[in-house]
């Protein structure tokens, strides 16, 4: 009813084909799950722009480089208030009557504080270090740190260390469930984490039986839907994460449509085939920090106090106070997900308008926990658009113990940020369950690209630390004197706890 044969939406992208270069091999046609490309009756390749999501699969596979995708310059009458995006989304809703859905992280033009932080380096008065010649330590332990040294009657030190996660480098792959991403994407993450000596995270979809072998490098997640949670699952990982919220959609739950609950996903999630997997917005047994404490200790009890427990929260207005509560709940690690964090599907308005930047959240949490003398109760892990080694270094200098990378990991596996995950037709074999698309991600290639990425970042982290004259990641942690701000106001500097460049 809503459209009456009128097409209100002009295609956002145009497929530009250099017909001189096109050899009509039809790779573009075979590889596009959106069915953009086709061959006409004269043997000439054509494209239906309206179906293109700009994922670059065709562009990347075209053997002669005949294709490019450009943004349409079709325009509405220019208006600084009613932008083309706002108008188009309004038309879409007037046609469908539905909530707008989006994927991946918040793409809006809000400030990226990482880009306004600058790092220090040594000159003359203190020596920088060459990481290729001298040892440089990036090993990180996550978990509660003992407050005091305890000795037995003979004066020997008693080991009062609680369980820790050991990471070779302060980077982990963040939670992405089996269901939201494919079997091959999970296989790539699991194998890469194992080879790198870091961790990946199951997300809330349970752990496929094939991946129990990667347990020592797996963080198993317990979310509000409790999908796939059982004793063997909790024991399989090196840590258990309670997911309270995620940066892309703080305060709301999740909904994996029944159509995607097939075969292994149904078995792994422990729900019947074809039934919708609905994660409630809250954990229905957690309405307070005291309730959270009960779940933390239930999970510790179930795993015989052998695994650290992580509590993951989204960065929201009161994040410092919430983190303070979490740090007193018995949790060993707090994971904070900033408003840029990715997702396989979220309501657009929530993704783009709810939550706060991770840089500010991290700084205020770290400061608050220090002020209250409970910083050692927990390790702090941050995620929500860590884009490069420089972001990792800045996060650690602001006070993080380690970083979660999700979007960056997807990019390494081939994702081109077309932000259409919710369609389930990922041409790169990541956010899809269609077998012919899933096989496009060969885990031999995917895991190698992830290993390459994290190794490259680790080299860069060492290089940057060396420049500062720091030879251990521990000496960088919370070392905000290594940061200076540019383009920030007094309040922002105050929250970040840093000086302005030149000060």
């Amino acid at each position, binding site marked *: 009813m809503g459209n009456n044969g009128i097409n209100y939406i002009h295609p956002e992208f145009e497929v530009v084909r250099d017909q001189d270069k096109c050899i009509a091999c039809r*790779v573009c046609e*075979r590889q596009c799950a959106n069915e953009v490309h086709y061959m006409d009756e004269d043997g000439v390749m054509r494209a239906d722009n309206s179906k293109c999501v700009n994922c670059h699969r065709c562009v990347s596979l075209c053997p*002669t480089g005949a294709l490019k995708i450009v943004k349409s310059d079709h325009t509405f009458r220019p208006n600084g208030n009613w932008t083309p995006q706002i108008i188009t989304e309004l038309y879409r809703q007037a046609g469908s009557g539905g909530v707008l859905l989006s994927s991946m992280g918040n793409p809006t033009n809000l400030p990226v504080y990482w880009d306004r932080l600058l790092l220090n380096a040594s000159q003359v008065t203190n020596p920088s270090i060459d990481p290729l010649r001298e040892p440089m330590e990036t090993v990180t332990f996550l978990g509660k740190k003992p407050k005091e040294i305890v000795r037995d009657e003979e004066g020997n030190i008693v080991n009062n260390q609680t369980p820790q996660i050991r990471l070779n480098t302060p980077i982990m792959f963040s939670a992405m469930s089996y269901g939201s991403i494919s079997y091959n994407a999970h296989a790539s993450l699991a194998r890469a984490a194992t080879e790198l000596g870091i961790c990946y995270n199951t997300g809330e979809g349970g752990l496929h039986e094939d991946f129990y072998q990667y347990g020592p490098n797996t963080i198993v997640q317990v979310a509000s839907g409790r999908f796939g949670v059982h004793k063997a699952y909790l024991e399989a990982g090196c840590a258990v994460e309670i997911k309270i919220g995620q940066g892309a959609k703080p305060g709301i739950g999740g909904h994996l449509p029944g159509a995607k609950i097939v075969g292994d996903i149904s078995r792994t999630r422990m729900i019947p085939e074809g039934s919708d997997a609905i994660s409630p917005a809250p954990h229905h047994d957690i309405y307070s920090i005291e309730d959270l404490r009960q779940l933390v200790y239930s999970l510790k009890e179930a795993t015989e106090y052998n695994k650290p427990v992580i509590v993951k929260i989204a960065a929201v207005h009161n994040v410092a106070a919430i983190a303070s509560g979490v740090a007193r709940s018995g949790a060993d690690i707090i994971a904070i997900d900033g408003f840029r964090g990715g997702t396989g599907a979220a309501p657009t308005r929530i993704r783009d308008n709810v939550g706060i930047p991770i840089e500010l959240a991290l700084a205020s949490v770290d400061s608050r926990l220090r002020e209250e003398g409970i910083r050692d109760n927990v390790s702090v892990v941050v995620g929500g658009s860590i884009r490069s080694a420089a972001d990792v270094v800045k996060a650690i200098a602001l006070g993080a113990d380690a970083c979660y990378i999700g979007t960056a990991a997807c990019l390494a596996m081939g994702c081109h940020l077309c932000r259409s995950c919710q369609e389930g037709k990922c041409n790169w074999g990541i956010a899809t369950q269609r*077998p012919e698309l899933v*096989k*496009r991600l060969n885990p031999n*290639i995917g895991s190698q690209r992830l290993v390459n990425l994290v190794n490259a970042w680790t080299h860069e982290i060492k290089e940057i630390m060396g420049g500062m004259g720091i030879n251990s990641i521990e000496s960088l942690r919370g070392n905000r004197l290594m940061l200076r701000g540019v383009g920030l106001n007094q309040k922002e500097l105050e929250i970040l706890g840093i000086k302005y460049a030149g000060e």
Partner: protein
Amino acid sequence: MKRVYVNEEWCLGCHLCEYQCAFANSGETDMVKALKGVKINPRIQVEEGDGVNFAVQCRHCEEPLCVKGCISGALSIKDGVIHLDENKCVGCYTCVLMCPYGAIMPGNGTAVQKCELCLNNSCGEPACVKGCPNAAIVYEER
């Protein structure tokens, strides 16, 4: 000996290998010039159906029926690779009939053609392996 193998689990049926093969054996340095408007006749061919795809080319058999059947001695084994001497070939197509894989076929300009692992063309290494987007075609010892 290193041979070209196909892992059908990873073959997407994109047919890029066929175009890489045709280009590598075209003698041209530009793919567009080599293949624009050309109906290709590649030495590797993708078989597809029922959700299973895989590319097939000469297996370089240890006891090759094509060599056994060749009436003019044009086919021989050179360092494990089955080599075609076009000067000796009389175009009887016995090899085409003998090959159980359908890996020898009538050529363009020559009577027959077959994969020689790109050892004799400008590519120097199997072009299908180099150009496969999903590492479904590999060149290795097994």
